[in-house]
């Protein structure tokens, strides 16, 4: 219904606005100073689309598509791109091409490419394939741990300890994930003290960062703040990240809360790839584009080019023959 002039693009891109109206710079500098008193100056974006996103696809995604997606994401300035997963292809057939993907991607010197390694076997395969960073996945819920990886939280920690020790010897950094940080599909609400306990264990085992996952997206700013309050008693905020799902539309509000509490690392997925496996048809991961929009217009730096992320999102949505979950991408495509 009519073209939206470039003036709207100024609302979308802080950089574009300053470029076109240099006199606004000093005025807006005041705004940024007011804001950055409360928020981090820089937020590290961890892109999980190629792994967490694509892993949920029912149809097998061709290896060349995965590789091209990761290459496009590397061009955007994203500092961390989770490339693949070295789990058994019996459990996650979508990631069976892990070695091929890792070896074929063009690795930017500005980015890191962690891969999931659930155990020693996966870790060794990952290193053999050239991985330089790995990730391990714990849970704050016993039932979820049993159902997802077939063992208790304690038993999983023993497994991870082995991986982390070996990784340390080889100077390979390890990132930890804790799922069900704000609720479990089996147990319901999870006590924040339990989340804090699991996070602390992963951190003390040697994970340089622990990502707190709202696996079914049920969290709200209230439960996010409460959980972070307990977790931050045990682990410094500089070693924490949030991984919010948008299943109930709460992700950006939850991320905002996390930023207000000092968190400055956020996981997200291009085009919001990755549904919620516990609620068929519902959305899952928060869209990288929507997070970037919020951060950039707030004056928070990420080093990421939003337009290029939108392009990568367009590419993968065409390849998967589906619509993007990103509101920003939807608005941009309809208004131009």
């Amino acid at each position, binding site marked *: *219904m*009519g073209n*939206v*002039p470039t*003036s*709207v693009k*100024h*609302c*979308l891109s802080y950089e574009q*606005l300053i470029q076109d109206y240099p006199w*606004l710079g000093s005025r807006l500098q005041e705004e940024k100073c*007011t*804001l950055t008193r409360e928020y981090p100056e820089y937020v590290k974006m961890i892109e999980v689309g190629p792994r967490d996103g694509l892993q949920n696809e029912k149809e097998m995604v061709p290896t060349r598509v995965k590789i091209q997606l990761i290459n496009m994401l590397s061009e955007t300035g994203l500092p961390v791109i989770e490339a693949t997963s070295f789990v058994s292809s019996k459990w996650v057939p979508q990631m069976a091409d892990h070695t091929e993907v890792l070896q074929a991607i063009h690795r930017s010197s500005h980015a890191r490419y962690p891969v999931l390694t659930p155990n020693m076997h996966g870790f060794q395969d990952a290193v053999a394939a050239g991985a330089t960073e790995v990730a391990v996945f714990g849970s704050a819920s016993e039932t979820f741990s049993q159902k997802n990886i077939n063992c208790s939280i304690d038993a999983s920690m023993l497994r991870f300890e082995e991986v982390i020790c070996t990784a340390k010897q080889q100077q390979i950094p390890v990132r930890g994930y804790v799922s069900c940080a*704000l*609720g479990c*599909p089996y147990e*319901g*609400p999870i006590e924040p003290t339990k989340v804090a306990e699991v996070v602390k264990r992963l951190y003390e085992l040697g994970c340089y960062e622990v990502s707190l996952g709202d696996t*079914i*997206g*049920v*969290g*709200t*700013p*209230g*439960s*996010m*703040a*409460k959980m972070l*309050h307990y977790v931050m008693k045990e682990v410094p905020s500089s070693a924490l990240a949030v991984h919010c799902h*948008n*299943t*109930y*539309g*709460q992700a*950006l*509000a939850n*991320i*905002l*809360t996390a930023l*207000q509490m000092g968190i400055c690392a956020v996981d997200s997925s291009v085009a919001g790839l990755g549904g*919620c496996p*516990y*609620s*068929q*048809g*519902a*959305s899952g991961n928060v869209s990288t584009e*929507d997070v970037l*929009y*919020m951060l950039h*217009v*707030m004056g928070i730096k990420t080093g990421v080019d939003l337009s290029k992320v939108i392009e990568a999102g367009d590419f993968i949505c065409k390849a998967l023959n589906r619509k993007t979950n990103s*509101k*920003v991408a*939807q*608005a941009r*495509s*309809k*208004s131009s």
Partner: protein
Amino acid sequence: MAAVMRFVKRSCFGSRMGLQCLSLSRSAAVAQLVQDGASAGKTLPERVKIVEVGPRDGLQNEKTVVPSEVKIHLIDMLSEAGLSVIEATSFVSPKWVPQMADQVEVMMGIHRRPGVSYPVLTPNLKGFLAAVNAGAAEVAIFGAASELFSKKNINCSVDESLQRFEVVTKAAKEAGVPVRGYVSCVLGCPYEGKVSPDKVAQVAKRLYSMGCYEISLGDTIGVGTPGGMTEMLQAVSREVPVNALAVHCHDTYGQALANILIALQMGISVVDSSVAGLGGCPYAQGASGNVATEDVVYMLHGLGIQTGVDLPKLMDAGAFICRSLNKKTSSKVAQATCKL
């Protein structure tokens, strides 16, 4: 901590978890912790009034005319869901907004629940008189913080529009009819781009001085983010008391709930929203518009904030209107709970 578990009969596994997690989080002990922690040091209101704009702002954007009986049934279901303010219709000329041509029939046909208010839009004196004649007990007027938007939308400057509204507010005062004011483009304009917070404050102040009991600040194209929302509210609250302010956030760029959270942290306790997220963005075809009431209520309840709204009944109203319009809900909460 004691909690009341409410099991909602929905087929989806994950959905039960969402509503269960919500129920537990509302227990008193948690609510206090949540209040203290949720806002990272900022106090949140204990209660938020939701202003439901679906039947007017939402349906107004539909291309095909929605039958009057559907509109009436929707409003009745929303009344049953516990909403205390439901914008029922609009007394603008049917020449401009054919969707609202059945304004009188709708006003007369709805079952008005005691304690619930059903404001209607009245752009001028003629509309106001027609509204009162049809039984309206509250009206609303719509200003803009952008000159270009005012010209394109209602064919006059901001000043001229305010003069027109003053005629309405005078008449309303004499008739004892409360008036709610709206300001559009508070965080950005589709024609002018960035809008000055001082301009927004000026327009809000004039509407308030004219007698509007509440001013709803609309992010018309949904471009706002927490930074802009903070700055704008700081400017406006210097001119209008914060308890007379509301926010009307569009979710076109997915920012609505984050913006609403900021507004709550700054003392705002009135939020406009639209059931099922009805109402697209006319400036970006196919893009979403109004924030979904279900998603707002989910967040508020999770924060331990009271709204008086029964979320399952609200979702039923959303499901009804989506079936009638043959379209999918824009509410994530509703999507997470739908049967497949």
